[in-house]
């Protein structure tokens, strides 16, 4: 336990402090408490013969506007573990960063590579403590000394170990493709193609998912993060340039006022260079 967290480890058992705080806040606020913005997403993962393939779309939306056309939804956790996140973008980002830091510290302290189960347990403990208020639906995939693993962690802290998976607003479409074509021990190219097809279905059938497809392949030998694996067929070409040469705007008048600076105080500190 001491190896994985540099911050104070919370007291053993359940901690429901935030429930009390939330109830108090809800009482104070007259109207409905604010809802966090969700980003539509399609993420998927599957275990193949030599490892794990994770895939995600790259659209981040803010209500009906596409805020980011090339957002990275596959996050680095450890050299052998990557995580796709769906749900509230800020939550998935910060949760995965926190997990990654804790695992790095553990690796350095113990001299061992982290195992998937450890990442899953840390995530489960953290998300459970916040009772679904951290809106992070995560797919964790990785290869460690015990084999290839794929886990899903829900926002309330439930964990499930599965051979293939899809999450996000486009999950039903992606799951349809996966349910139809998934087989155990696929080859690398088949696995990549299946994940691509699943995310593609999510992009076509869900308004919140779109743009490009990222793929991340994790095997014993290493990680291949292909970004983008497939570019959107609907890229537009800009009709005019938005960059202007210096001198485009004519200068009518110019006034230069030099700033006078005076030295008020000077201190000298000797440096110890022993």
């Amino acid at each position, binding site marked *: 336990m001491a190896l994985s967290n540099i911050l104070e480890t919370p007291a053993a058992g*359940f901690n*429901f402090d935030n429930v009390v705080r939330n109830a108090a806040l809800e009482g104070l606020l007259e109207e409905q408490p604010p809802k966090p913005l969700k980003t539509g997403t399609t993420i998927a993962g599957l275990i193949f013969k030599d490892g794990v393939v994770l895939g995600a779309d790259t659209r981040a939306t803010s209500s009906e506007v596409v805020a980011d056309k090339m957002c990275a939804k596959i996050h680095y956790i450890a050299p052998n573990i990557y995580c796709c996140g769906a749900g509230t973008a800020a939550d998935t980002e910060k949760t995965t960063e926190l997990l990654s830091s804790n695992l790095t510290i553990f690796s350095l302290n113990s001299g061992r590579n982290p195992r998937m189960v450890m990442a899953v347990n840390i995530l489960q403990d953290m998300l459970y403590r916040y009772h*679904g208020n951290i809106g992070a639906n995560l797919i964790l995939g990785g290869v460690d000394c015990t084999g290839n693993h794929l886990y899903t962690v829900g926002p*309330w*802290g439930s964990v*499930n170990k599965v051979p293939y998976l899809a999450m996000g607003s486009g999950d039903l479409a992606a799951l349809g493709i996966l349910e139809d074509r998934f087989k155990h021990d696929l080859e690398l190219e088949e696995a990549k193609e299946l994940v691509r097809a699943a995310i593609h279905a999510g992009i076509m059938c869900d308004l919140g998912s779109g743009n490009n497809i990222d793929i991340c392949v994790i095997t014993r030998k290493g990680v291949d993060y292909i970004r983008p694996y497939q570019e959107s067929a609907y890229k537009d070409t800009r009709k005019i340039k938005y960059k202007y040469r210096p001198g485009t705007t004519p200068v009518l008048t110019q006034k230069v006022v030099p700033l006078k600076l005076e030295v008020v105080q000077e201190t000298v500190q000797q440096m110890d260079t022993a």
Partner: protein
Amino acid sequence: MEKRCLDSQVKGVSTGTTILAAVFDGGVVIGSDSRASIGGEYVSSKTINKVIQVHDRIFCCMAGSLADAQAVIKAAKFHLSFHSVQMESPPLVIAAASVLKELCYKNKEELQAGFMTAGWDRKKGPQVYVVSLGGMLISQPVTIGGSGSTYIYGYVDAKYKPNMSKDECLQFATNALALAMGRDNVSGGVAHLVVITETGVEHVVVPGDKLPKFHDE
């Protein structure tokens, strides 16, 4: 995900389920279905494991909110293992059930999880305990739980006999689970059964298409 859990009482993934445990001559059988749902309308997992091993000869079945149940079982495993190290002997089944009961009772406002504990120990042999939602702990020779259990009370009352043989008890459990899964929409998938005796633990998994069929199927 949120759009799917508006109607349900349970927040997040629920194990709306059928679980059962029964004592036979020389051991216990504990079993469950394998479906996890969100909001009673979306099956989030067809193959979830609801029968968890908390010690060498003690297993637990969970019902209710999956997140709460998994968290409680994690804490229980730790407490039980620590207790076992302190006592320098394998824990009694009642100890495991009590650990779960303490956690469920002390946190009853926040938790939505119920458990069934079954196992074998040297003192009392095979036993089955039930910890309900509010933290009540009782011991019974045969017990059923979860949303699907309502459909099989009649079957269990009529068919359970004390001191059955292992095979009879396994057949009884498989039939009961099959009947419940046939009528309850939030129970389904495969039937996970575990047989615990003094000599060891045996896992039996009956896939959906190999479950016993009854007259109208």
